[in-house]
């Protein structure tokens, strides 16, 4: 009974703390939020002349964020190797 009460209390306190942090987030679809004024204008304005790629998604994915995509590919590779290691049974 006491443990249940303590658990609920901790959950409520955590909820209140998270709601406090929620106030500092920018408003939904605010054009002046940090994500929209930091690097996005640079990608949108200079994307074609710097990379020669009309599709801005590909430009960001493969060029500006090349490390991200490299390790995404490595994650897929690791997942496949893990499935092979766990499931593959060769004939004896």
């Amino acid at each position, binding site marked *: 009974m006491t443990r249940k009460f303590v658990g609920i209390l901790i959950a409520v306190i955590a909820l209140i703390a998270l709601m406090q942090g929620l106030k500092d987030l920018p408003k939904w679809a605010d054009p002046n939020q940090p994500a929209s004024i930091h690097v996005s204008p640079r990608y949108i304005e200079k994307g074609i*002349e*710097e*990379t*020669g*790629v*009309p*599709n801005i*998604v*590909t*430009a960001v*994915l*493969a*060029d500006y964020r*090349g*490390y991200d*995509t*490299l390790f995404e*590919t*490595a994650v*897929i*590779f690791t*997942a*496949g*190797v893990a*499935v*092979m290691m*766990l*499931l*593959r*049974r060769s004939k004896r």
Partner: protein
Amino acid sequence: MIREHEDIVIQTVCRFFIPFMQAYGLYVLAHGHGSPGGGFQGGCILAASFILMTISYDLKEVKRRFSEKLNVLFCSLGVFIYAGTGLVCLLLGGNFLNYGKLSKILPTDPVMARYYGMAAIETGVQITVMAIMVSIFLNLVTAGKHEETVEEEDAGDNSK
């Protein structure tokens, strides 16, 4: 689980369909620069064509066309192409994955060299995604045995 069904309608439709799916997967890769698409999507479409081949024909047919040795090779080849492109940029004097330096070995200016560098890494992504998707599907559906098995609970009570 995966055995030949001998259904002429399914097999004929799939035989027409699979080459178009594979061509479309390559189209999605090649047009990833100008329209929505890229390595991940194209790889999944290519893998879907092999999965369709598995469920319309049988496992033996897929293993004949895309053997397990080749599959494992392709899994690592894609990551190798991606990291190798970055390493070539490093050797040519730029940062890792700075494709602009590829203009020293390609007959283009640095901006178009970035274009071709991106095409190279998307090809690597496509090869890895295709091989891994096919490998995961085959391992899950045959419980890792890679052979055709008849489900034992269906064998008894489903007498036709």
